[in-house]
């Protein structure tokens, strides 16, 4: 690095208190995956028996890595690139920018799903999709093209997409407290109340108990399948928003004297509690649908993801007494859960830009956010949106985030040997202390399980073209996304800091044998 200006950086934003932080972190963790991914994944991986690997994964990977994010962000008080630079030098900064680049890719497509959910919220008023929910979604709403990329804009997607970007940027531009925290303090209780109403309604539908039987009846033979355990670790890992900068950034906004681990337990268990609630609501509803069709729940198709939300659920709503209200509750919940998560993804990007380049919040929000909004609109406001979304989502999550987690744990805990230091930081400030067990989970079990997941995913993607798309398309859009993430992180790491990032004193002083000589 050449010359660095030594003027003081602006004050770091702070949550007003513990409740604001917890609700914001829950808002980030509870997203689309809780509603449309968990129920189907649980059903396909042993039903009730899936709860065993799921709870094991929560306790041995989800919560420990969440604490690791909190410890790094809070002790080194910065966005992912800044905090990781302070703990692990330029290598750490590069990993931080890689996390930011993952968020860039996710933000670009995530808003599209938000736009779809908000459209369907409105369409629920008069069940606009009629008797053919799948045909309406693919042909009339998305107007899906046969070619993977077009510039043919679809107004019904374009307009809500632009509105969602405006809402997101206005919230972010208002700041951490007046924007992000306020949005979550209002949005999360609203989400819980709305979704509870949906679940209660679903439980009184004919056939609901068939759905719950399908979800909760255990298939113990599934526990012998390593794929089921990988599915459990994947679900916990993606659901909690760990290892790609979000929780690290949010914890950097906490006051120095803050309890870290016990609020972390509240966040992690609340996230999983919402998943269980979603499982009950979704499968009670699917039980009703199977009952109406005179088939078993196991014969239904489209039990996860876009298929569940925009094909199966609208079809159910069309057959249900009081369907419009049920549809509004479902798509309203989806939109709120997605919006609070989207805001946290964007905050990772904006916080990093503000830290490195000295932008004000408004400059970062409207300049960087504006550019991302334009890219998002061009890619996903057109007839080619679904294909690109599906591909980038798979690579950003299964390759990007998992690689980031492995790189971060190996760099911070194996190369820099900062595990004891971070454990000391957490324990000095928190009412729930951590020690050797936590260290084992984050420095041994976590990297091993995540490394296995990464290798298995790469082998699978090489062996069989994802989603039946052409190998050339996947090479450009899928693997190309990862190359752009890496290239972007290298470029951003090479740029000059507006304020000296190393002019910083961590607090509190923690004495550990392994940390001597390292970053304290």
């Amino acid at each position, binding site marked *: 690095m050449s010359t660095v200006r030594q003027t003081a950086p602006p004050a770091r934003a702070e949550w007003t208190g513990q409740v604001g932080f917890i609700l914001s972190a829950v808002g980030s963790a509870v997203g689309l995956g809780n509603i449309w991914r968990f129920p189907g994944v649980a059903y396909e991986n042993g039903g009730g028996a899936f709860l065993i690997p799921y709870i094991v994964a929560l306790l041995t990977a989800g919560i420990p890595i969440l604490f690791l994010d909190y410890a790094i962000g809070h002790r080194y008080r910065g966005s992912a690139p800044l905090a990781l630079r302070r703990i692990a030098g330029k290598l750490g900064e590069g990993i931080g920018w890689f996390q930011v680049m993952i968020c860039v890719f996710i933000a670009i497509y995530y808003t599209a799903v938000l736009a779809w959910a908000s459209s369907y919220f409105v369409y629920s008023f008069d069940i606009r999709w009629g008797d053919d929910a799948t045909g309406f979604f693919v042909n009339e709403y998305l107007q899906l093209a046969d070619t993977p990329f077009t510039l043919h804009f679809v107004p019904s997607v374009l307009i809500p997409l632009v509105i969602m970007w405006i809402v997101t940027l206005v919230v972010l531009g208002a700041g951490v407290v007046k924007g992000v925290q306020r949005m979550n303090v209002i949005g999360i209780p609203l989400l819980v109340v709305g979704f509870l109403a949906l679940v209660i309604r679903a439980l009184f539908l004919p056939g609901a108990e068939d759905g719950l039987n399908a979800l909760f009846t255990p298939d113990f033979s599934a526990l012998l399948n390593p794929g089921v355990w990988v599915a459990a670790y994947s679900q916990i890992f993606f659901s909690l928003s760990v290892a790609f900068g979000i929780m690290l950034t949010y914890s950097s906004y906490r006051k120095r004297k803050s*309890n870290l681990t*016990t609020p972390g337990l509240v966040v992690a268990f609340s996230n999983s*509690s919402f998943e269980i609630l979603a499982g009950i609501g979704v499968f009670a509803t699917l039980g009703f649908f199977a009952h109406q069709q005179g088939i078993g729940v196991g014969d239904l198709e489209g039990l996860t993801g876009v298929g569940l939300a925009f094909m199966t659920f609208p079809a159910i709503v069309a057959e249900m007494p009081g369907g419009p209200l049920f549809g509004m509750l479902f798509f309203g919940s989806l939109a709120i859960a997605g919006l609070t998560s989207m805001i946290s993804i964007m905050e990772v990007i904006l916080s990093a830009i503000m830290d490195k380049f000295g932008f004000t919040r408004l400059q970062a929000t409207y300049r960087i956010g504006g550019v991302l909004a334009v890219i998002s609109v061009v890619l996903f406001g057109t007839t080619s949106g679904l294909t690109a979304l599906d591909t980038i989502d798979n690579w950003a999550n299964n390759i990007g985030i998992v690689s980031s987690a492995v790189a971060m744990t190996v760099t911070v805990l194996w190369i820099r040997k900062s595990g004891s230091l971070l454990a000391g930081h957490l324990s000095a400030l928190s009412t729930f202390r951590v020690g050797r067990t936590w260290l084992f989970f984050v420095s041994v079990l976590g990297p091993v399980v995540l490394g296995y997941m990464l290798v298995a995913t790469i082998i699978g993607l090489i062996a069989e073209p994802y989603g039946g798309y052409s190998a050339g398309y996947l090479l450009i859009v899928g693997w190309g996304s990862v190359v752009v993430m890496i290239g972007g992180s290298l470029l951003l790491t090479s740029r000059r800091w507006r304020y000296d990032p190393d002019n910083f004193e961590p607090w509190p002083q923690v004495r550990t044998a392994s940390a001597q000589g390292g970053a304290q």
Partner: protein
Amino acid sequence: MTPIAILFLVIALIIIWGGMFASIIMLSRKSEVDTYPEGGKDVFGD
């Protein structure tokens, strides 16, 4: 619902929702450590 499905539903509720309520109660009973290490003022611009 079948007894085995009810059993696993109840187990999920006890462990996951129980974990949530237990951690909320734990936090509300003791929201901060008794004494923080010295220093730790939120410095302008850190």
